[in-house]
C-alpha cells in the first residue's frame, strides 16, 4: 500500500536499512551489536525452551486468534485514537492525536504483553508466574492475568517504588499477588529485576518469568515487542481512517521502551514518519540525576541479559537513576532502541520532571484526561514539537497509561497529604 507522506521534521533515509531494521533480531537475538542472551548458565535452557515455544506459536493462527480475542474482549481493544483538538489549538501547531492505551483494562499498555505471556505460561504448564515492576503497572497487569488463569503470582518491586506507588501495591494484593519489596541496591526497577532473576534461577522448573519491557535476554525483547505492536498496527490503521494519511510524527516515552516499540515498530519502514522517544530527564540530563541513557550519551554495557546503552560509571558499575516516574527509573533501555538510535531511525530526547508535571496538568485541564507521569514525558515533548510544525501536520502520542496511580505523588508536590 502506498501512503502519501507529507514533509516531516526529520525522516529516516535509507529504505534498505529500514527493512533491515524491521527484520531484527537475528537468530541469536541480536539487534546489531545489541541484545543477545547474557545470562547465567542455569537459565539458558529455560530461555531456549521459551524461544522454541514462541517460535511455534508466533505463526500459529489459533494462538493469534486467542490473543486477539483476549485483547478485544478482556482488554477492550482497539483503543481509540483521540484528536486532542483543544490542546492542539492552544499549542498552535500540529494536530495532536492520543493513542488511548490508558483506556485498556488495568489502565496501561502493559496488559497487551502480559496477556500474551500468560498464554505462553499456560502453554508451558508452569503453575507460577513472577514479574518485576517499577510504577506497578506491569505488576498489576501480571497479577490480573494470573488471577484470570489461576496462576500463583509474586511481584518484585523496589522498596522506594512500593512507597511511591502504594495504590498499585494494594491493587496487586487485592488481585491475589504477593508483592515482595526489594531493599537491595537503589531499591528501584533495576533491583526488582535483579531479584526476579534470582527467584527465576532458583525456581525455574515451576516458574514463568513475565518480563514487562523490551529488555532482558532473548527472546524477551522480541516477544514483548510483538505483543505490544498491536498498538502501532491500530494507530496506523486509525490514522489512515481518521486523518486520511499516516501521521508526520510519533511520540512515546521510553524507560525500557515497550510502549514506544509497540507504537513505532509497525511504522519502522514508513520513512516519512518521524519518531521521538522521550526519556526521563529527571532534574536535567546535565545534572546526572536522570534516567536517560540514550539522550545523555551513556556508553554501551551489559545488564539483565542484554547488551544496550547503559548508564554506568567508568568502572562499569551501574549508575543510580532519578525520575519522578517510577516506571521510567531504569539505567538501561531495550536493545532494539539502542540499534534504532545508531541507525538514526528514532530521535531520542529527554523531558525533565518539571516539564512533565506541566504537561500532566495541562492535559488534565484542557482535555479532561489525566495521564500517567510516564506518558506525560511523551506529552511534554509533544508540547515542544507541535508548535514547530504546521497545523495541517499530525502527531500521534502514545498515551500509554492513566494517571490515577500518580495522584498521590502530584498531591504531595502540591503539599497535600491524604
Amino acid at each position, binding site marked *: 500500500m502506498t501512503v502519501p507522506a507529507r514533509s516531516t521534521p526529520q525522516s529516516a533515509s535509507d529504505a534498505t536499512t529500514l527493512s533491515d531494521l524491521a527484520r531484527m533480531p537475528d537468530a541469536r537475538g541480536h539487534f546489531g551489536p545489541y541484545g543477545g542472551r*547474557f*545470562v547465567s*548458565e*542455569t537459565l539458558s535452557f529455560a530461555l531456549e525452551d521459551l524461544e522454541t515455544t514462541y517460535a511455534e506459536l508466533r505463526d500459529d493462527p489459533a494462538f493469534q486468534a486467542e490473543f486477539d480475542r483476549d485483547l478485544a474482549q478482556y482488554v477492550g481493544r482497539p483503543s481509540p485514537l483521540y484528536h486532542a483538538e483543544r490542546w492542539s489549538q492552544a499549542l498552535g501547531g500540529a494536530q495532536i492525536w492520543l493513542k488511548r492505551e490508558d483506556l485498556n483494562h488495568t489502565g496501561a499498555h502493559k496488559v497487551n504483553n502480559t496477556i500474551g505471556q500468560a498464554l505462553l505460561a499456560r502453554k508451558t504448564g508452569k503453575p507460577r508466574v513472577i514479574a518485576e515492576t517499577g510504577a506497578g503497572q506491569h505488576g498489576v497487569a501480571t497479577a490480573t492475568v494470573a488471577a484470570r488463569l489461576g496462576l500463583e503470582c509474586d511481584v518484585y518491586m523496589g522498596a522506594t517504588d512500593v512507597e511511591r506507588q502504594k495504590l498499585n501495591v494494594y491493587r496487586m494484593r487485592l488481585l491475589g499477588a504477593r508483592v515482595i519489596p526489594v531493599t537491595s541496591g537503589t531499591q528501584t526497577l533495576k533491583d526488582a529485576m*535483579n531479584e526476579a532473576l534470582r527467584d527465576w*534461577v532458583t525456581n525455574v522448573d515451576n516458574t514463568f518469568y513475565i518480563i514487562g519491557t523490551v529488555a532482558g535476554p532473548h527472546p524477551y525483547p522480541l516477544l514483548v515487542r510483538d505483543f505490544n505492536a498491536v498498538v502501532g498496527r491500530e494507530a496506523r490503521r486509525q490514522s489512515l481512517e481518521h486523518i486520511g494519511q499516516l501521521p508526520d510524527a510519533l511520540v512515546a516515552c521510553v524507560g525500557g521502551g515497550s510502549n514506544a516499540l509497540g507504537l513505532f515498530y509497525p511504522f519502522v519502514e514508513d520513512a516519512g514518519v518521524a519518531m521521538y522517544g522521550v526519556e526521563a530527564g529527571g532534574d536535567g540530563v546535565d545534572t546526572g540525576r536522570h534516567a536517560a541513557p540514550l539522550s545523555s550519551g551513556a556508553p554501551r*554495557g*551489559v*545488564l539483565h541479559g542484554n547488551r544496550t546503552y547503559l548508564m554506568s560509571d567508568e*568502572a562499569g558499575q551501574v549508575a543510580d537513576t532519578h525520575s519522578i516516574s517510577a516506571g521510567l527509573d531504569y539505567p538501561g533501555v531495550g536493545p532494539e532502541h539502542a540499534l534504532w538510535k545508531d541507525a538514526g531511525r528514532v530521535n531520542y530526547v529527554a523531558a525533565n520532571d518539571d516539564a512533565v508535571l506541566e504537561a500532566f496538568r495541562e492535559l488534565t485541564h484542557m482535555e479532561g484526561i489525566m495521564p500517567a507521569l510516564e506518558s506525560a514525558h511523551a506529552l511534554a515533548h509533544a508540547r515542544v514539537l507541535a508548535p514547530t510544525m504546521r497545523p495541517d501536520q499530525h502527531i500521534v502520542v502514545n498515551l500509554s497509561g492513566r494517571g490515577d496511580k500518580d495522584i498521590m505523588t502530584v498531591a504531595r508536590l502540591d503539599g497535600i497529604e491524604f
Partner: protein
Amino acid sequence: MNRIDQRFGELKQQGRRALIPFITAGDPAPDYTVGFMHALVEAGADVIELGVPFSDPMADGPVIQQACERALKAGTRLVDLFDMVAEFRRTDSVTPVVLMGYLNPVERIGYRAFAEQAAQAGVDGVLSVDMPPEEADELAPLLKQNNVAAIFLVAPTTSRERAETICASGDGYLYYVSLKGVTGSATLNADDVAEHLAPLRELTDLPLCVGFGIRDGATAANVARVADGVIVGSALVNRIADNTATPEAIPGELKQVLGDMRRAMDAPR
C-alpha cells in the same frame, strides 16, 4: 603453560582434589585483599577465585551481594584487581588466580585492554557469570591470545547439546553449578552432583570443579569424592562479613574455615 593447567596436572599426579576458595576483592577494603589471598594459600588453596565487585550481582545471594556493596563502598574497581594480583605475584608465582564476576565492568574497560591487562598482572583465568559461550566469541579469543583461560559454567539444567558446546569452548576447568539458585542458598546433594558429572567426563578432559552449596569440611569431602575440585565462596565471605570491625582477625578466620575443608578432603577414606 597456564598456571591452572600446571596446577591441575600436579594435583592429578598426586591424586588430590583442588580446593578453590572465592573471596570478593576489596572486601572489606582493597588493602586487605592480597593478605587474604596469601592466607588462603597457606590454608591449602590450590586456585584462588577473586570476585570482581559489581553493583548488580544477579546470580548471587545476600552474602556475596553485601560483599560487593562493601567492596564498592571502599572504592574497589576492576583495575584495582590488576594491582592486587600483581602484588600477590611478587611473592607467589605459582598459585593460579581466576577473576570471577559480571561482564559490564569488562565491557567498560574494553575486551582487548582487559585481556592484556589481566595477563600482565598475572591473572590465569576469567569467569564471567553472564557470558555463556554463545556471547563469548569476541572475548574468548582475546583471552586465549593472552594465555588466560576462559572458564564457563555448566548447570544441572544444561542440555547435552549445550554441554558439548561449553566443553569445546572452555579452558582451565569447568565450573559445575551444583544447584538451581543463587550463591549461598542451600546445601548440595553429592549423589546428584555425581550423576550430572558423569556425562561431562565423556565430553571433556577439563577438570570438573563444583561450586554452590559447599558449607563445611563434610560437604567439601563429599564433593571431592566425585569432582576434581571444590569451590567455596559464601562460607568464607561470611567470615569476612562477621569480622569487618576487626579485619586483622580475618586471615585467621579464613584459614580456619578453609583448613577444615582441606583436612576433610585430604583425610584417608
